[in-house]
């Protein structure tokens, strides 16, 4: 209850912030549409020249694009703006004031800034997933869709947990903030199925920045390529990631000594 209350307060204050720049909103929506057009044009070029990418058809790639865009909404709406805020607050010591509040600090630093207009990208992503699902003929049981949705959610959570872990490492290595740039570069690989990539890139996007777990794995569940125990396993990894990242955050806070005092 109290988490929801905190979230809604944050959303309200961020909404006020964004509504102050209404003209930018139009520009940003146009930019979103340009991005969508460019992604779809890219896919259409590929399928004009081939029937499948590593065995996957157009409808599956549209769903994959939707899932990949969900991860990007998380990046642009929450991770980028709050990374910037966080790095600044460690640098100038204003993190002290955040820590003094009687609220879960991890939740506070990850929702301090929410770029509201990215909800538009969220709608686009969901739209792509729905359109792709409607055109997909390979789904035989509703369980596949349930597994797909569950794994999409848990995959996105794993990316969030990776971010929390990375910014926690800032407490040990002050210059670590740049690692988010590398993380976001690798995320780009998630827009195509992982098995088209050479081994080293697949390893990178599975074990280092697990974007394959967030994008390719849910699609594999949808295609019925995962055993039930594999699906449960990936969901379990999601939970472990959340737990580990919150431990990393707490351990990091213990090392924090403040820059202002």
């Amino acid at each position, binding site marked *: 209850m109290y988490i929801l209350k905190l979230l809604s307060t944050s959303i309200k204050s961020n909404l006020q912030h964004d509504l102050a720049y209404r003209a930018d909103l139009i520009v940003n929506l146009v930019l979103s549409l340009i991005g969508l057009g460019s992604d779809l044009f890219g896919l259409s070029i590929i399928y004009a020249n081939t029937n499948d990418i*590593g065995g996957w058809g157009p409808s599956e790639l549209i769903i994959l694009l939707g899932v990949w865009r969900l991860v990007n909404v998380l990046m642009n709406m929450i991770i980028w703006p709050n990374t910037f805020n966080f790095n600044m607050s460690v640098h100038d010591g204003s993190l002290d004031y955040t820590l003094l509040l009687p609220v879960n600090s991890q939740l506070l630093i990850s929702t301090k800034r929410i770029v509201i207009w990215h909800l538009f990208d969220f709608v686009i992503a969901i739209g792509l997933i729905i359109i792709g699902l409607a055109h997909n003929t390979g789904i035989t049981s509703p369980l596949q869709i349930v597994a797909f949705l569950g794994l999409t959610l848990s995959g996105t959570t794993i990316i969030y947990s990776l971010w929390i872990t990375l910014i926690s490492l800032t407490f040990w290595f002050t*210059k670590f903030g740049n690692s988010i740039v*590398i993380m*976001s*570069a690798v995320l*780009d690989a998630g827009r195509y199925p992982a098995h088209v*990539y050479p081994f*080293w*890139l697949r390893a990178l996007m599975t074990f280092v920045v697990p974007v394959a777990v967030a994008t390719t794995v849910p699609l594999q569940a949808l295609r019925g390529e995962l055993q039930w125990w594999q699906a449960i396993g990936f969901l379990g990894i999601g939970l472990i990631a959340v737990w580990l990242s919150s431990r990393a955050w707490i351990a990091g806070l213990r090392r924090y000594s403040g820059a202002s005092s």
Partner: protein
Amino acid sequence: MFAIYRRLWQVNWAEQWQYRADLLLFLTGWLISPIIFMAVWTTVASAQGNVNGITAPEFAAYYLVLLLVTIATSDTTLNSLSYKIMGGGLSYQLVVPVHPVLTQMLVNNLASKALQMAALTPIWLILYLLFHPALAITPTNMLLALPAITMGFLLQFLANATITCLAFWTTRGGSIMSLYGTIFSFLSGQIVPLTLLPLFAQNAAAVLPFRLALYFPVQLILGTFTVEETLINLGLQLIWCLVLLVVFNLVWRAGLKRYSAVGA
């Protein structure tokens, strides 16, 4: 004149070395996307033999050369220009008797370029071993590629500088830049070889100058052009460079008249 360039080079070269960690980050961001396209197309091509006549090793060769040409010809410093115009930082450079864009930023760009190429070389060699490209570089092609790459760089630099000058009139030039970037990426061959585009886009690419910036130097190095085609395209590059230089100067002068020097 030459002394000014030399001095600026020394300053900028030293400055670039200061931020070498940022440079590596920059490179990672740039490397990933061509590698993704290379992986996707080599997979598709090896699954069905070829795509529109292009085999997997040829795709690998295309994207590997593209990677070099992209880094050699792209500009990395102009986005700071729009901030300088909007924030008033340009004032300091205007009182110096050196052109802020055509001298200072150009040299700054060249310095970062040189360091990027040095950092890219080992990575490029590893990629070469991983992807087995069908690459046969002849000395003639490399020699011809030098003016082609230089003019490809000038084309991009001048076009971007002109668009960045829109910041004199509007604070929202970013969205125009982004639309331009999207069109550029498709019609310059940055995403796929132009022959794979749908027909309407191929026709557009043939008429517009975007292909001269990347696709032409890449194909020149790959050796797919006849002597005649090469000369025609080099001539076209030269003409477009001159046209853009004139356009840029007109826009720059008109913009300076509107410049309000925020914060002064």
